[in-house]
């Protein structure tokens, strides 16, 4: 091994020789611990080791660093480090007007960006007390449910990829690609749609979108069913996820979970039913729940939700009325001074925005509540005692999106 006194090249600048060796494996921060939790985490007992599941890691969904304290292969404790993808979206939104907020909020939950641009629009409409035409409401529900299915299809592929299966991710992407091409025909973009406008939507349904939606609906469920049959009953997959990261109802509520992780524990909290918005009260669908609350239950829950979404799309297509798709609004929006909280049900949970306006054309404060931020928190509670391979499975089943977590 290299003895300390030999001159070591610094990692940052190879031409520079440093006397103290580059402590590559030193995950302990140089500054003194600031809180008791940090002190307790960074003091290592006998046989323990700190390892970085670093910002660049194949299975952190985005840029997330998790410092693991492991004893052999078993995890003793875990401290996620956030901020690698922090762009200060809330500060930027405070300096831009209400229209620009939509394009800034798009890349927050980039896998389901129809939802992440729908919420600030909903909050602005509450502040402006504008009534959105019914056709626009139906188109919004249609686009959101399509985006939910594409996000769930991708989730199932990622979960299997994190457990080592190579094929499901490609079947997931096949499903997602079909839907995303359809949404590109409607909105003009594949990933960040920028389709919602305050008071309505950008463009009306066109032939290209309706024809693709038509032949997709004919084989929608069958394709997803048989491509996911690859892992539903696979003994290794079930063995790896059954009983992993089990959450009971009380801890789920105390950890402020929302979306599939919460419904997997049996609590039927879904913002579309709990606090209905847009035209959801008129649509008939039920909220699938499971009892076990472990990774396998969360996985099966996503399958049921896809069935419900297809059912919703079917109803929307039968009931969509004619009429305008944008409400009459002045070009320069100056909402009345006031506060509004709007929340919708995104594929990962309850996605809310708390918008405050002071009468000017720039929002006074735009607080974005992202479900992955709170779902990711429960990884710290669930993983001690499991193995390193399990933390990947737990994180994959909670499905965090780092764009939303780091805002």
């Amino acid at each position, binding site marked *: 091994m290299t003895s300390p006194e030999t001159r070591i090249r610094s990692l940052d600048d190879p031409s520079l020789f440093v006397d103290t060796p580059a402590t590559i494996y030193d995950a302990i921060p140089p500054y003194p611990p600031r809180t008791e939790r940090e002190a307790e985490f960074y003091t290592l007992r006998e046989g323990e080791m700190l390892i970085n599941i670093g910002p660049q890691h194949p299975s952190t969904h985005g840029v997330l660093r998790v410092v693991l304290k492991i004893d052999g292969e078993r995890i003793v404790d875990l401290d996620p480090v956030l901020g690698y993808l922090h762009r200060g979206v809330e500060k930027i939104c405070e300096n831009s007007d209400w229209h620009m907020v939509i394009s800034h909020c798009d890349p927050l939950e980039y896998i389901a960006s129809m939802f992440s641009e729908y919420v600030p629009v909903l909050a602005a409409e509450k502040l402006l007390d504008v009534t959105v035409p019914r056709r626009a409401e139906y188109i919004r529900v249609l686009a959101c449910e399509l985006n939910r299915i594409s996000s769930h299809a991708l989730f199932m592929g990622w979960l299997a990829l994190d457990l080592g299966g190579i094929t499901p991710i490609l079947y997931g992407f096949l499903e997602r690609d079909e839907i995303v091409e359809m949404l590109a025909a409607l909105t003009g973009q594949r990933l960040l749609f920028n389709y919602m406008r305050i008071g309505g939507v950008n463009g009306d349904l*066109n032939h290209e979108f309706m024809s693709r939606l038509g032949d997709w609906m004919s084989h929608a469920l069958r394709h997803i069913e048989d491509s996911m*049959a690859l892992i*539903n009953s696979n003994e290794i997959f079930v063995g790896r996820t059954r009983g992993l990261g089990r959450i009971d109802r009380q801890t789920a509520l105390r950890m402020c979970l929302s979306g599939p992780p919460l419904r997997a524990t049996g609590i039927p909290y879904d913002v579309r039913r709990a606090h209905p918005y847009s035209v959801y009260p008129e649509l008939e669908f039920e909220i699938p729940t499971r009892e076990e609350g472990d990774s396998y239950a969360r996985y099966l829950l996503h399958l049921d939700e896809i069935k419900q979404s297809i059912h919703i799309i079917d109803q929307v297509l039968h009931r969509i009325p004619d009429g305008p798709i944008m409400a009459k609004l002045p070009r320069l929006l100056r909402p009345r001074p006031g506060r509004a909280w709007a929340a919708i049900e995104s594929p990962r949970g309850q996605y809310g925005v708390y918008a405050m306006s002071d009468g000017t054309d720039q929002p006074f404060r735009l607080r974005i509540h992202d479900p992955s931020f709170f779902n990711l928190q429960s990884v710290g509670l669930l993983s001690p005692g499991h193995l390193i391979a399990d933390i990947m499975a737990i994180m994959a089943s909670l499905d965090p999106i780092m764009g939303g977590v780091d805002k």
Partner: protein
Amino acid sequence: MSFVPGLGILKGMALTFRNMLRLKPTVQYPEEVYPVAPRHRGRLLLLYDEAGALKCETCFQCAQACPIECIDMGGVDTRDRYHVHWGPAEQYGERREESALRRSGRPVPDPTATPFEPIDTAALDAILADEGYDPRHMLAILGRTQDAYGHLSVAALKHISHATGAWYAEVYGTATFYDQLRMAPAGGHVLAICRCPSCTFRGAGRVLAAAEAAASTTLGGSSPEGAVRLEAAACHGGSPGAAYVTLDGAVQAEPTARGITDLLTRLRAGHAPAGRA
């Protein structure tokens, strides 16, 4: 933990086997192109109306409204002069490096902001008007400016950049690329040597080597104490017998390596040319 590899795994294997034989949805991109939806906003293109006229009248609204200031626009006015330039790109790049440099605690060198003394731009404006503010005549503009002012000052280059609309970086690049253009005022004498093939056959190469050795500088630079400055000249095929070497414009009679070395040593020693008033 025990698991019996029962039906689930075999069903999965059967599915992948069936998929192995199915038709693949892959699109071979260069040969086949996936049909892009008509409303696709991925294509950034400037629209023309049915009469073929450009739909954009350079009102800069989009550049102003862009949240991340990524739109760089240059507009031509009615007399077809390229003069209006909303160019955050130039500052954008510098601004980003500048803030990164400042965040790293290092002092921020800001060449463009270093105060430069203004010049009387009357002569320069005349030259620009004569060249029609056309950035394609940049070399001619710079040559005539150097003749008018003796050298190319930063103020002159800034003014040319604003007038012709070319980026300052481009103008600066052109000025520093050519040997005959000089940014620093030429203190002492200018020894110009032609580099065309015919002169080189007649020994211009050896003369240049000797001159560089004597003036201890390379072509385009001036000697350390600034007495002499070497430059490239253009004999335009005029030199019949010998290499075309001029000192402050006067053609040298015997342009040989030893002659030029003596001349330069005398110039650098006395700092006053022999026999010149």
